[in-house]
């Protein structure tokens, strides 16, 4: 049997799980991110001493919310700029004077969607959006966020304060965007979530543990947004994509942390629960004919996930999906990936032609995956000299020691 949670752990767990929901509702009431955060923090500190004496309340979340509101009344009364907050104060007092009902966490209005749209508002810098989302919805501490992004705590602290100040003063709305703005804003939210995921996913060593948490956090955020915006199918697409990628987390590197390519991964070690969930989400959304780039990328990942081996991969389907992706989001990186699929599905000549085409505008001149892919195609067509040259260039362009080792190993096997 597992040892029971200590009270401290229970409080920490409740605070972590309910943080985003309580904070979002508080911001709605108070109209001020910093004030809401401070009051919630006060409330958690107060929970420590009260719950120690009296045990856990019926609904810890409702308790935290109610206490945070009282802390807000206190803070507003002490505030020198009291006058400007009259409206909020009288609203809080009204809430306080309501007849006591059953304390239940589902009485807390869910404002998390308003919150995430505010945190991912285009008037904020991309990195700030990411940090703010992790802080407010994820409940990660400033130190944790700084650590995950290899930043100094003080710098992250300043970034977050500036952002909260800007939200307060610049007129960034705390609401779900109107229909006309929704697709663009959803995109901004999704790219923030995907950045969080990739930050965790691409980490391979050292602080790997903390950073792996970021992938979990990104998946959790996507689940929340999906539940709140069920008709925005790209949200489902991104969730499926992340689940399918994440299913390979434990087979992507070997015992010494060395990189293992998709071709050589032990497919038995893939997480089939995640694959099943990702695939069933796709089966649900793809027939609804609102296909977007995340759904297509997830579909590509699903073809790999469902293939029993590298040799049996349905490369022509993957090549066709890349064609579709390219039509939606033309880029030389998509062409590059398509060329690799074509090299397996059709012919090396066609694939090489596509690679040349992708490289015409110079965008690939210092793009490591381009040289790795080109080297591979050259090796397979028997041109060892050119293959070696491209591998060396790819090594030169890589800043990841594990990746370098992986590519060097390929040269020795030429």
């Amino acid at each position: 049997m597992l040892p029971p949670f200590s009270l401290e752990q229970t409080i920490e767990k409740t605070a972590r799980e309910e943080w985003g929901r309580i904070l979002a509702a508080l911001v709605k009431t108070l109209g001020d991110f910093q004030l809401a955060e401070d009051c919630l923090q006060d409330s958690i500190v107060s929970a420590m001493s009260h719950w120690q004496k009296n045990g856990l309340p019926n609904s810890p979340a409702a308790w935290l919310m109610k206490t945070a509101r009282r802390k807000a009344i206190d803070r507003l009364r002490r505030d020198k700029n009291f006058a400007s907050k009259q409206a909020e104060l009288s609203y809080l007092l009204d809430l306080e004077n309501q007849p006591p009902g059953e304390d239940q966490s589902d009485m807390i209005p869910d404002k998390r969607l308003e919150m995430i749209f505010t945190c991912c508002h285009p008037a904020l810098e991309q990195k700030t959006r990411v940090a703010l989302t992790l802080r407010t919805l994820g409940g990660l501490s400033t130190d944790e966020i700084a650590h995950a992004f290899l930043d100094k705590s003080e710098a992250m602290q300043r970034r977050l304060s500036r952002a909260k100040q800007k939200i307060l003063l610049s007129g960034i709305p705390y609401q779900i965007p109107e229909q006309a703005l929704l697709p663009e804003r959803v995109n901004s939210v999704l790219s923030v979530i995907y950045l969080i995921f990739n930050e965790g996913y691409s980490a391979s060593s050292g602080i790997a543990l903390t950073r792996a948490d970021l992938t979990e956090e990104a998946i959790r955020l996507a689940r929340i947004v999906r539940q709140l915006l069920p008709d925005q199918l790209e949200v489902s697409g991104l969730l499926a994509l992340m689940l399918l990628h994440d299913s390979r987390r434990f087979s992507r590197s070997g015992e010494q942390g060395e990189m293992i390519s998709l071709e050589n991964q032990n497919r038995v070690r893939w997480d089939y629960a995640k694959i099943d969930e990702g695939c069933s989400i796709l089966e649900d959304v793809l027939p609804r004919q609102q296909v977007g780039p995340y759904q297509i990328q997830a579909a590509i990942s699903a073809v790999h996930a469902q293939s029993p081996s590298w040799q049996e991969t349905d490369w022509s389907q993957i090549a066709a999906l890349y064609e579709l992706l390219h039509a939606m989001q033309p880029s030389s990186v998509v062409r590059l990936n398509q060329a690799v699929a074509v090299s397996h599905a059709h012919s090396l000549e066609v694939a090489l032609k596509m690679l040349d085409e992708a490289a015409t505008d110079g965008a690939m001149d210092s793009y490591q995956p381009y040289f790795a892919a080109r080297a591979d195609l050259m090796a397979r067509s028997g041109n060892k000299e050119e293959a070696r040259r491209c591998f060396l260039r790819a090594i030169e362009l890589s800043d990841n020691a594990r990746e370098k080792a992986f590519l060097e190993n390929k040269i020795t096997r030429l």
Partner: protein
Amino acid sequence: MQFMCLIYSADGTGPKPGTPEFGPYMKAYGDFTETVRSDGKFVAGDALQPVATATTVSVRNNKTETMDGPFAETKEQLGGYYLLDCEDLDEATKYAAMIPTATHGRIEIRPVVVWDN
């Protein structure tokens, strides 16, 4: 809340008087002003004389000093402004994007401070 929309553009980037583009450009400004007026968003708005007409004033040691021209030479110049009363930044952004200069210059949106007393 009120938003100041400051209209910036680099010298010589917009349509010039006397060219065929200039008439429609001016008309677009007229139309925009009409739109914000009828939507109830207009508080104030003006075009400014070119930056060559600027005078900079400062007071040092109780002495008023004037200087010909802007204090710092910048490529982009403030050409005019609209003061709009909007619901939030999203609405202000929607209107700012309709200001004709936005297609070759840029509009800086700054919320107006509301003093407490």
